[in-house]
């Protein structure tokens, strides 16, 4: 998720990273600062051949990057990255629902900065600040056994960005492993995860078809 502009022609290591691709497919609001002849095909709502100066369009980030590199558009920082939101995040990032704003809040923000969007430096600063503020809480929640507050935990998890959620899962898996070791269940050799999940699905499907058979 490093600034992709910085690594020149090399194929980035996250080329096949799903989260990065999904972040790039999200739409941003763009305004054309020049008119471009015969580019009308990117605006499906209007049936014109050309795109006029001042046209406002919602374009996927990957396309906006191409147009911005040619200096043809300016990008409005979307909700979550504009000044109002930056101030909210600055004040207390832990209460903001990044899943709703993202769910690839950081990856998307990183691309915005990489394409030299206006206020890029402020956005980048806000990303670092937001992540730092929230990281402490993510660590506390994931590395401390808190089975007594499942509701709170659930609400907390629902607010996380996809990369934060990944970190959270990592932490709680480590905790689970240590707990298992303490309770001596780690030695048990188990069926492989996929085998178990396939079995479960089969059982669910069988139950379903049985129910259908009795219904009919």
């Amino acid at each position, binding site marked *: *998720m490093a600034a992709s502009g910085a690594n020149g022609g090399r194929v980035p290591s996250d080329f096949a990273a799903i989260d990065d691709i999904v972040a790039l497919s999200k739409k941003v609001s763009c305004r054309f600062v020049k008119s471009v002849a015969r580019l009308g095909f990117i605006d499906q709502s209007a049936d014109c051949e050309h795109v006029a100066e001042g046209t406002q369009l919602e374009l996927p980030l990957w396309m906006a990057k191409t147009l911005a590199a040619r200096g043809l558009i300016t990008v409005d920082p979307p909700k979550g990255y504009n000044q109002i939101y930056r101030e909210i995040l600055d004040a207390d990032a832990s209460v903001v629902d990044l899943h709703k704003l993202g769910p690839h809040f950081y990856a998307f923000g990183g691309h915005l900065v990489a394409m030299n969007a206006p206020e890029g430096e402020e956005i980048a600063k806000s990303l670092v600040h937001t992540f730092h503020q929230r990281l402490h809480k993510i*660590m506390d929640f994931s590395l401390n056994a808190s089975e007594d507050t499942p509701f709170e935990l659930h609400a907390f998890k629902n607010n996380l960005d996809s990369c934060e959620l990944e*970190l959270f899962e990592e932490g709680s898996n480590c905790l689970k492993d240590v707990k298992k070791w303490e309770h001596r269940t*780690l030695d048990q050799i188990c069926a492989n995860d996929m085998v178990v999940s396939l079995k479960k699905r089969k059982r669910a499907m069988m139950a379903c078809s049985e129910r259908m058979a009795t219904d009919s």
Partner: protein
Amino acid sequence: MDWCEFIAEEEIVEIIPNFKYDKQLNLISGDFGPFLPSVPVKVPLWLALNLQRQHKCTIVVPQWIQELQRLQEAQENSDTLIEMPSECWREIMHLFREQCKSMPNYSSLIEKRESILKSSVHALFRHAFESKSLFLTDVTLHNVSRGELQLLKSFVQKSFAQFQALRNVYVYSKQ
């Protein structure tokens, strides 16, 4: 964690056998024996546990486990991690707990050390956040053992990588 325990099982302990085997055992980690009834002999922990399960010996509880209370108090009075007598103290204690019923309770020792470790990670993130450059120096943590790190290691590694990536974006934006 199972691998930490596996490594800990190589630690040498003293046992008092109640059987006779007057040859040496030539193991990868060294030669052990001969075994004579009531004569203390040093063996790897895994062998000791195995023999004890077959009622062929009693394990001599290491000196430091008997001094656990003292260690626990010393840790309680310290803000940093104190040096533990063995690199695998937690794993060894865990293995011993299953054998000896009379193990002192050491959960507060674990808890205290865990909380020191966690706050040092918090401090590390704060340090990275306040640091102007991407390169961080002077990050040291003394007296932490392998088993204790298991809880934090991969979480810290992954979140730090993510944090540095974002910091890198910030550095890029200033150019």
